């Protein structure tokens, strides 16, 4: 609202004065002359902004931030005035930093009583710091009572609900907030990424769906929604979503990789190989190469798998899995016959035995994989290999993007 004029305030009757106070966020309590003076002071300050110079309260705020709460408390106490809620908020903040949560809550309470609604949010933080999430949510509600659509308050409430374990309520509050602020649709993607990192895949998939409703061409949301669906076990939906992502840009290595993993989980290893190999062509990362090699190994493409492991070892020469796989896949040499070292036979005898075991292990998945095809059952071994691959491949989806500085949700 526009500011009332000084004359208007000087001649306002009591109800009008109270109304002006409320609209300006000032404390309407007290003798009428004092309240009028309060409003006039406020207006004068707003009309002619004074040149800034650091005061005690600024020093106190800086000391709070710099981690000297005791000195800050002393300074805040010296700035306390009868009608100013701000020093109480500052004092509470310093006491919060000093670990005196009870006193901090009391100070915020005083500021709230003086008409500073935002002090409720500070109070909520102090209560949450003490582990009282229920109280924190109530404080947020008190704040939202005066400003129901305030995004800061709503989001803080959602955070405290989530930290208190009321995740469903938190997501409902958040959803309501986003629906109340359609211009903030971008936040859905941020929420999705947070949920994905928090391993709440179902909710993440939903968040990305909302994000895509606002911006259907958002590639990151498509890919991450695919990842979330894959994690939650909705493989066929994941495949559909990832294909959609690839229709926009067929060269997206991460989407190709995830699609390959999805095909593996859907029992389509050939499609998996094709997509993973395409992914490796566009982006040769150790993770993608490992996925490719594993799938190739699972589909009995031994030379190709060996080559993929070799490529992986070029990128990461110490990769234990690749080293083990190369050892496993390379054709075993005929055992040498000891000639002169008869006395040492006993000790090294175990090694050939181990090798034999290793070859047996290697042979086992092949047999079972065949049996899967024959009987159409989901046997353990062939699944285990894709699962491992999938497990590795799943992680890179969202995490990889965040690490590599690929478009983060907040940036787009």
């Amino acid at each position, binding site marked *: 609202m526009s500011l009332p004029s000084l004359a208007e305030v000087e001649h306002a009757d009591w109800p009008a004065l109270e109304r002006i106070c409320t609209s300006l966020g000032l404390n309407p309590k007290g*003798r009428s002359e004092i309240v009028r003076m309060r409003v006039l002071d406020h207006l004068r300050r707003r009309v002619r902004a004074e040149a800034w110079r650091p005061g005690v309260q600024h020093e106190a705020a800086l000391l709070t931030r710099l981690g000297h709460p005791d000195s800050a408390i002393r300074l805040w106490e010296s700035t306390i005035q009868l009608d100013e809620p701000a020093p109480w908020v500052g004092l509470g903040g310093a006491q919060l930093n000093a670990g005196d949560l009870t006193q901090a809550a009391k100070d915020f309470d005083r500021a709230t009583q003086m008409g500073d609604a935002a002090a409720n949010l500070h109070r909520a933080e102090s209560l949450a710091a003490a582990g009282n999430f229920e109280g924190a949510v109530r404080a947020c509600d008190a704040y939202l009572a005066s400003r129901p659509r305030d995004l800061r308050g709503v989001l803080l409430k959602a955070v405290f609900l989530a930290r208190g374990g009321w995740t469903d309520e938190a997501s409902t509050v958040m959803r309501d907030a986003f629906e109340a602020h359609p211009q903030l649709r971008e936040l859905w993607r941020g929420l999705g990424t947070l949920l994905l990192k928090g391993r709440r895949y179902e909710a993440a998939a939903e968040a990305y769906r909302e994000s895509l409703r606002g911006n259907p061409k958002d590639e990151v949301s498509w890919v991450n929604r695919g990842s979330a669906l894959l994690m939650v076990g909705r493989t066929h939906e994941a495949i559909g979503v990832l294909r959609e992502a690839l229709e926009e840009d067929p060269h997206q290595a991460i989407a190709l990789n995830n699609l390959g993993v999805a095909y593996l989980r859907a029992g389509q290893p050939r499609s998996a190989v094709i997509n993973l190999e395409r992914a490796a062509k566009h982006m040769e990362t150790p993770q993608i190469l490992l996925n490719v090699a594993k799938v190739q190994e699972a589909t009995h493409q031994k030379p190709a798998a060996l080559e993929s492991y070799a490529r992986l070892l070029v990128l990461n020469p110490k990769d234990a899995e690749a080293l083990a796989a190369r050892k496993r896949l390379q054709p075993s040499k005929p055992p040498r016959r000891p000639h002169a070292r008869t006395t040492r036979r006993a000790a090294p005898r175990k090694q050939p035995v181990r090798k034999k075991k290793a070859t047996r292990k290697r042979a086992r998945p092949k047999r079972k994989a065949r049996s899967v095809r024959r009987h159409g059952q989901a046997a353990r071994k062939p699944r285990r290999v894709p699962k491992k691959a999938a497990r590795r491949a799943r992680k890179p989806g969202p995490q990889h993007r965040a690490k590599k500085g690929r478009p983060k949700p907040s940036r787009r």
Partner: protein
Amino acid sequence: MSAPSETGNRFLPSVDRLEATVHEGRKALEGARYDEALRRFNEALRLKPEYDVAWLLRGHTLRRMGDLDGALQSFAQSLRHNEESEEGWMGLAATLHELRRYKEEAEAYDQLTKLHPRFVEAWLNKGAAYHDLKDYAGAIACYDKVLSLRPEHAAAWNNKGAALLRLGEDARAGECFREALHFNPDFYDAMVNRIFLFQRQGHHGDVAFWADRALRIRDEAWLWYTKGLAHLGLLESTMALRAFERAAELDPTLKEARAGARRARVLRDKVDFYRGVYECFGTHVPGDPGCGECEIVAKCREVTR
């Protein structure tokens, strides 16, 4: 054949050179380089001994250097050459004030107000001179003259209030301070005078309120002490203790503050009222709509005198 330039300057001083010298001197005076300023003005007066502006500036320079007698002589010289100079009379009167020669100061302002009857600052200072001479009625007449010329002059209202306070007319003084603060809400002197008035009347609530406002402008130990006393009167022990502690912190020599803190601690064991959001606590006015809605009205009425 041409005459030497120095000779030319000596007998036919160039106006340009004179003005340049005075200008240099004025710059030196503004930059607080008083020795250089004095040298320049002396040089200008050698060039033109009857130059009133140079005498005036010399007087200001000497006044700032602490040579009040020298300054007085310079201002007198200035007025000898330009009798109607406002600045000359003002400088002379200000120097007389610093020399505590209030009677002569008042006479100087008399002269000035005769010459310039609408010169508001002269009337105000004349009133202040009469105030120093304890002629409060004369002072009030001067302030009334100012207020007839400029009714919004906050300093005149404040000074009039101070004079009335001396005459024991508390109600009229209170009105004057109210007017002063109406025209200049950040007028520290008026706030302080109002605090004195309320303190004399025993209105602790008003003292605490106005001390709080004055402290926003100047953080002074005695004000904190006064505020602490008012809180004691309102049975707000914690607030009183905090105020006394702050006073002692600002002025460790203020023994009264430490004594006040001790009293506040003793009182806290018996009573400690918390006013909450009501900064007007202790200023109850029957019939006021704000007081009608107050949650602590009973307690407020009890402590209001």
